[in-house]
C-alpha cells in the first residue's frame, strides 16, 4: 500500500511542475489522489442509489446508500449497537493481547532453541493450515457458549501467526552479525538480547499486523456460528430478518475497524524499526 501511494505522489509532483497548466488543472494535479478516490466511491454509490430508487432491483435485496446512512445514524441513536461493538471488541482485545504475548514467547523459544523448534513447528504448521473456525465446535464443547470459546478462536489464530513469524525472524538473524558477537565474546544471552531480538522485531510486528486481521475474522466467524451479541451476530441476525441496511452498517463498522487496526499497528511497527532504511525511504 505504501508503495503505490509513493508512486502516486511522485506522479502528482511531476505533473504539478508541468508548465502552462490552468489554476484548476494545477489544483487537480495537486489533489489527484483525493479527487479520483472520491470519484471511484461515487461511481459505485450513485448507480447503487439510482438502481434502488427506481426499483430496478428490490430494495430489500440491495438497500441503498441513503438507507444505509439512515440506518447507521438510527443504530447509534438507539445505542444497542454499542453493546455489539463492545462484545466483539472485548473478545478481540483479550484474545489478541494474550495470544500476542504467548505467540512471541513461543516463537522466540522455538526459533532460538533448535530442538524446541523441531518439536513445535509441525504443530504450528498443522494449525496454520486449518481454518480457525473449524475448531469452533470443539471449543464450544470444551468451554460452552459465550465469551470464553470466542476468545479461544481468536487466540488460536493469533498465536499461530505471531509465533510462526517470530520464528522466521529469529531464523533470519544474519551470520555476519553473529560473527561480530562471537569475535567480541558476547555471551549467549547477550547475543540474543542485542542481535536476535532486535533483528526479529520487524518480523514480529508483521506477524501482529497480519494476526490482527485474522483475529477479526475469528471474532465475527465465531459470532456468526453461535452467539447472541457482537457485530457478527448483528450482521447475521439482520441478514436473516431482511434488514439489509443493517447488514451494510455492520460491514462498514468492521471495515472501519480493520482499517483502524492496520493503521495503529502500522504506526507501532514504524516506531519499532526507525532504524530501517526501507521504512524511511
Amino acid at each position: 500500500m505504501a508503495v503505490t501511494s509513493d508512486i502516486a505522489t511522485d506522479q502528482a509532483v511531476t505533473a504539478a511542475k508541468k508548465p502552462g497548466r490552468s489554476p484548476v488543472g494545477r489544483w487537480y494535479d495537486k489533489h489527484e489522489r483525493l479527487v479520483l478516490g472520491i470519484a471511484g466511491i461515487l461511481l459505485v454509490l450513485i448507480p447503487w442509489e439510482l438502481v434502488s430508487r427506481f426499483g430496478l432491483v428490490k430494495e430489500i435485496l440491495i438497500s441503498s446508500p441513503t438507507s444505509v446512512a439512515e440506518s447507521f445514524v438510527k443504530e447509534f441513536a438507539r445505542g444497542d449497537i454499542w453493546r455489539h461493538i463492545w462484545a466483539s471488541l472485548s473478545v478481540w482485545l483479550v484474545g489478541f493481547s494474550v495470544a500476542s504475548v504467548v505467540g512471541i514467547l513461543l516463537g522466540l523459544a522455538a526459533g532460538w532453541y533448535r530442538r524446541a523448534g523441531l518439536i513445535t513447528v509441525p504443530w504450528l504448521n498443522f494449525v496454520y493450515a486449518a481454518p480457525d473456525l473449524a475448531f469452533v465446535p470443539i471449543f464450544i464443547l470444551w468451554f460452552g457458549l459465550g465469551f470464553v470459546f470466542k476468545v479461544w478462536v481468536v487466540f488460536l489464530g493469533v498465536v499461530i501467526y505471531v509465533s510462526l513469524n517470530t520464528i522466521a525472524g529469529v531464523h533470519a538473524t544474519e551470520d555476519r552479525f553473529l560473527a561480530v558477537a562471537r569475535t567480541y565474546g558476547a555471551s549467549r544471552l547477550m547475543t540474543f538480547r542485542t542481535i536476535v531480538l532486535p533483528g526479529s522485531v520487524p518480523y514480529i510486528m508483521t506477524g501482529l499486523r497480519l494476526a490482527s486481521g485474522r483475529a477479526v475474522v475469528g471474532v465475527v466467524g465465531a459470532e456468526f456460528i453461535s452467539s447472541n451479541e457482537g457485530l457478527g451476530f448483528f450482521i447475521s441476525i439482520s441478514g436473516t430478518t431482511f434488514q439489509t441496511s443493517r447488514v451494510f452498517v455492520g460491514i462498514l463498522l468492521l471495515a472501519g475497524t480493520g482499517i483502524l487496526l492496520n493503521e495503529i499497528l502500522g504506526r507501532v511497527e514504524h516506531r519499532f524499526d526507525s532504524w530501517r532504511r526501507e521504512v524511511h525511504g
Partner: protein
Amino acid sequence: MPELEATNIQMEYERRDGSIVRAIEDISLAIEPGEFVSIVGPSGCGKTTFLKIVNGLLSPTGGALQVRGRPITQSTGDRAMVFQEASLFPWYSVARNIGYGLECQNIPKAEIRRRVDPFIDLVGLSGFDKHYPYELSGGMQQRANLARALVVDPAVLLMDEPFASLDAQTREMMQAELLDVWSQTSKTVLFITHQIGEAIYLSDRVIVMSARPGRVIADIKIDIPRPRALAVKRTDAFLGYEDQVWALIESQARATMASGQLSETVADA
C-alpha cells in the same frame, strides 16, 4: 617476543559427500608488536579462513596460535576484527555499535561512553554518534567498524578486506586514514586484501599466499619510509613491489585455472 605467532596452521574440511577439502596447507608467520602485515593471494586461497582462525571463529585442524607467547583457542578480547561487509547493527546508534565490544564485557554504560568518545573523534565521526548506520556512507560505516575494533584495545587488529565494498576514491582515502589512525594507536595489524597496491601501501610486510590449498610463498618487507602519502603509490619503488607481488600471484592464479579448481575456489570466496 612476537605479538602473534602462527605455527604450521592447517585447515581441512569435510564436504557433504564425505570428501576432504584442504583449504590451508601450512601457514607459519610471526608478527612483531606494532607491525602492519598484509596477506594477499588469489581468491579462494584461504586467506579469510586464516583470519577467521586467528580470530577464533574457526578452529584449525592442525598447528598452533600464540598471542604474546600464550596459546589461544577461542575469541577473546585480545583480537578484534574489522569485517568486510557492513556489519554494524542497524538497530543501534553509531555510538552503541562502537561500544559493543565493551558492552559484551559488561562494562558500565557511563564507562563505555567515556571510552568510546575519543575513538569516535579519532575516526572522524564526531557529531554522528547518535546516527543510525543507514544514515552513514559506506566509508563512514567502515570507520565506525574500525572504531568498534579499536575500542576494545586489542593486542592484534584483524582486518578482512575492510575497504572491498567501497568505491575506488573512498577506498584510497580510507587507506590513508587507516595509516593515520594506526600511527596514533600503534596497533599490531593483520590485514587481508586481494588488492596488491593496498597491501603494499599499508604494510611493513606483505605475505603472499599460494592458490588453494594455501601456504606462504613469499614474505616481502616493504621498505618505503613512513609516513606515506598517497602519492607514494606512483614511485618506482612502489611499482617495483607491485610487479613483484603481481608476478607471484599471477603464476598462482594461472596454476589454479589450469587445474580446473575454479569451481572450488568460488565456493570458498
